[in-house]
């Protein structure tokens, strides 16, 4: 572990205060477990302490944090220790029943689709921005987004509109599927 240049206290406090909820939210959505999300949360900020990446802007820092959450969550989910534990996916409480159904449906998507859905619908990134975050081609992200929405429609059995056009540059509008009972 390098001992060289560490981020100063003011920077770290700003990062935790400003982006702590975002990091935690992404970690919960990605791992499906609040306990795992706490581990990811702490790991991400400890890594931030030591990274020498020069952040050109707040958006750059935010993107770095999101990537760190995705990477650490994948490491955690793929770890031998994690695989040997019982499934700790929790019954997370939601204020609206349809939120719980949407959550469940999203969690049942393949991992790569889940990332895109999270970033698009929950964090408001456009497909071009998602592509940059995940290191994919924009066309790939759009294709995967369409497949993710088709899968969500199938899971929710409702009026989830998989044909909604995908903004490539502007912010996406938060969207919910409507489940039919």
């Amino acid at each position: 572990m390098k001992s060289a240049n560490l981020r100063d206290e003011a920077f770290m406090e700003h990062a935790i205060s400003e982006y702590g909820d975002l990091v935690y939210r992404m970690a919960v959505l990605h791992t499906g477990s609040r306990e795992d999300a706490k581990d990811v949360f702490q790991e991400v900020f400890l890594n931030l302490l030591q990274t020498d990446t020069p952040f050109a802007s707040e958006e750059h820092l935010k993107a770095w944090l999101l990537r760190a959450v995705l990477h650490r969550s994948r490491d955690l989910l793929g770890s031998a220790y994690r695989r040997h534990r019982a499934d700790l996916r929790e019954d997370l409480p939601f204020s609206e029943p349809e939120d719980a159904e949407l959550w469940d449906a999203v969690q049942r998507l393949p991992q790569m689709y889940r990332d895109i859905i999270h970033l698009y619908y929950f964090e408001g990134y456009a497909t071009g921005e998602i592509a940059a975050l995940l290191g994919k081609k924009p066309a790939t992200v759009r294709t995967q987004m369409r497949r993710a929405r088709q899968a969500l429609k199938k899971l929710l059995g409702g009026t989830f509109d998989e044909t909604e056009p995908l903004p490539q540059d502007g912010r996406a509008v938060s969207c919910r599927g409507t489940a039919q009972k």
Partner: protein
Amino acid sequence: MAEQFHAEEPLKNETRQKIADARLRLSQPKKRRPRWQPVVACACALALAVGLSVIPRPQGVSTSASETSNSQNTLLDGFLLTAYAADENIQVPDKASHDLVTFEGNGIGVWNGPFYSGCLFQIEGPDISTVTLSIDKGSLYLEHDLARNPDGSDNSSKELLQNPVTLSLQEDTAIGFALDPETYASIPEGGDLKEGWHNCLDYFNGATLTMAITFTDGTTQTTEHHLKAGGLKVDENSTGNERVLLPVEVSKEEQTSTPYIYAIYDEDFVS
């Protein structure tokens, strides 16, 4: 929906504390190991090298630097690797902080079973939570209960490990290089017992041992050790009970006339 998930203040405060702890640990000046790091070596049933003698040591286990008069417990990047041995005083030069050097010691080859080399090391550090080890050639084993009976006989037990394996470090254990039964059976026996034994250790030539150390603050450090096996020269000016090991390789031809200890070691140790 996702707005319901917030990082609560206790989590943020705990994270702030871990960051402060990590900052303190990473900011501390690194202590240098003394040039000569005394290590207590274990006797081997086979002759170790020309000119060496096995001297029974007092009961008990001794590997750490704290037991030597002028040594310091020096931890570079949070951990220290020390060769474990039991019966003979061998001093290892402090050539590099994390070089792995192990000497053939009280090993055993089990008929139709595994081979335990006796080449052992310990990982030490104040804040180590777990260690994950993997090796791409051969196996690893755990030597438990590093102690001797009152009569000086070995009282330890050996356990072949999974690969990879994650361990919580315990005081009376050391980690060593082993061969599973199938691999052991395939090693040429050689012309005599010593050659056969060294053929087993030679199996680790070119192996890579990967060590991922997780500290109590959740951070990890991973190191790779590219291994060699062979004779390491003993300083001919060593006197008495002490044998001073040099980072100099002794070829098989030279071993007939040069004092050496057969070892499994980091290739960086001799570079």
